[in-house]
């Protein structure tokens, strides 16, 4: 197991390096002029050159590259162009707020969608299965900002059950924070429901038809025992992978949700950075999301290995 962990960590580091390189290519290598983009088309050329000099975009590309790699591996993303504050002071508090929203969304969506997936699988091709599958297809097709806008008008404006401005006041208790956050979290939960439910359904269906499930049933285990001990352990592996992948992708959708609810998380921070062309902040935030993705997929692989003895055996060989 420890050898597996080591190998998996090693590959995570390589992926992180490649990811940072991709972000570097987008920002520094593609034919773009960052100073010009920040200052606009009418700024005098000297100012553009001065800004490019200050941001370091006039240095040889290899130096820029080494610097940007150092930033990634020391988790120090430099300074914001507009405020001069360290990028870390901007993105980490914002990440914490987005994290709360994301956690709530997952708490809402995971039990419901796994349960829906199991129900659909057990009633395969019956009406309830069709309903769950098609509902899942529809909900995962709706962009998060669309469901956010619709939920906003229903729950926050029409029924006044939630808040249209999701930033809780300072010092709010957990219960008060929940009042602010549940509607935006629901908007995200809706989009993830479809993937998770369909994934769980597919996993359970193929595990149900397996030899080990048949053997367990035939030796007289109750169907709930077969489900718990044999089917779920195997069927959940792809679901866990999907959840981990979504933790990374969630940050693509969270931007829209945070914008609709004026929530000041990582998504809003990135949007503000886009508006001000604050590339250091944007670059830091994108890299941070990549790092989170790496760790969540790593955790998922370890969890799958822990759940399934066969995977453990295979990797230790």
């Amino acid at each position, binding site marked *: 197991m420890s050898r597996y962990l080591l190998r998996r960590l090693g590959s995570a580091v390589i992926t992180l390096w490649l990811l940072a390189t991709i972000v570097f290519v987008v920002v520094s290598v593609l034919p773009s002029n960052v100073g010009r983009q920040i200052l606009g088309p009418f700024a005098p050329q000297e100012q553009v050159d001065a800004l490019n000099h200050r941001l370091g975009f006039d240095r040889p590309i290899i130096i820029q590259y080494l610097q940007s790699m150092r930033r990634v591996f020391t988790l120090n993303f430099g300074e914001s162009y507009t405020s001069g504050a360290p990028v870390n002071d901007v993105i980490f508090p914002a990440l914490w707020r987005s994290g709360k929203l994301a956690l709530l969304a997952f708490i809402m969506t995971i039990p419901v969608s796994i349960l829906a997936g199991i129900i659909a699988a057990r009633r395969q091709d019956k009406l309830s299965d069709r309903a769950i599958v098609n509902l899942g297809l529809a909900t995962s*097709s709706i962009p998060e900002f669309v469901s956010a806008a619709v939920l906003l008008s229903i729950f926050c404006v029409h029924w006044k059950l939630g808040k249209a401005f999701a930033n809780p006041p300072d010092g709010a208790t957990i219960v008060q924070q929940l009042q602010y956050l549940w509607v935006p979290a629901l908007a995200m939960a809706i989009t993830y429901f479809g993937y998770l439910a369909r994934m769980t359904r597919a996993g359970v269906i193929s595990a149900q038809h397996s030899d080990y499930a048949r053997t367990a049933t035939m030796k007289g285990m109750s169907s709930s025992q077969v489900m718990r001990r044999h089917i779920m352990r195997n069927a959940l592996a792809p679901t866990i992978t999907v959840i981990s992948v979504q933790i990374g992708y969630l940050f693509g959708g969270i931007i829209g949700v945070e914008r609709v609810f004026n929530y000041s998380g990582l998504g809003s921070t990135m949007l503000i950075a886009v508006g001000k062309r604050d590339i250091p902040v944007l670059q830091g935030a994108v890299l941070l999301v990549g790092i989170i993705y790496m760790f969540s997929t790593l955790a998922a692989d370890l969890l799958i290995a822990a759940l399934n003895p066969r995977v453990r055996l295979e990797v230790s060989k």
Partner: protein
Amino acid sequence: MSESDQIEGNPESMVSTPAVDVIIPATPPAGPSERRAARKENWRLIRRRPSFIVGNIIAIVWVTCAILGTRITPHDPLDFRAKPHLSPSSDFWFGTDKTGRDVLSRVMAGARDVLKIAPPAALLGVLFGVILGMLMGYIGKRVDIILSRIVEAFLALPVVLIALLAITTLGNSSWVVLGVVAVLFTPVVARTVRSAVLAERDLDYVTSARLRGESKMFIMFKEVLPNVSGPIVVELTVRIGYAVFAISTLSFLGAGPPPPSPDWGAQVSEGFNSISAGIWWTTFFPAAAIASLVIAVNLIADAVQSVLEAS
């Protein structure tokens, strides 16, 4: 987002491999005529699926709106002479927006903005992805190891984020959006194609082509490609849906065509601040338009996928 991970799932452990596995001959070397017959049969099965029919009806409505544009809209989508924020009525079925423009006309005309970019972006992404995936799967070895790593790194970046970064540094134009979405779809498609090619690579027809002395290019694109066309077609339909999803999210975030263009994402972004004042129609109808187009494409993709994967 993550749909390609769903297809992979957990390898051998979940699938109950039938014991007769050995007896089944490797994929029969389908001749051109057999292949055509199989394709015809698949097409017939796909056409009959209700999700395909429903999806197509919705999609055709939007394509018609996109092609005919202002020729069929009840009002001029840019005409602001009506009163602002009129609620839906018989004159303005979907009401008017904050500058007095007809929401229905804008929603109809807005189909063009997204349909102009999304399908070409998906097509381009699939084209690159097929070439890359083919190289990874067929050439294999070091090429595969290196490219797989790069693909994995790309997958760690949410499309919307890296697109925002690229648009911020490269400037905002529909060409940049199209190119960025295509490039970001490439690794996802490449991974699907790679695993399909890996399953074909050691089959008899490929070996015999190799022994015949055919070039790698010929084997890859004339022999293997027709046999992995199923997953590629599925991937293309799924990608079109995701392109609409991603592009409308980008234009909602301000990276779409500039105003007064009637783009759907841009309309939602103009309208959602008035929801608190009870003005829901300026947001709801363009939002519903986005949702309906993505759902329609995904219904079609679902039908194509269930037929092609069963065969």
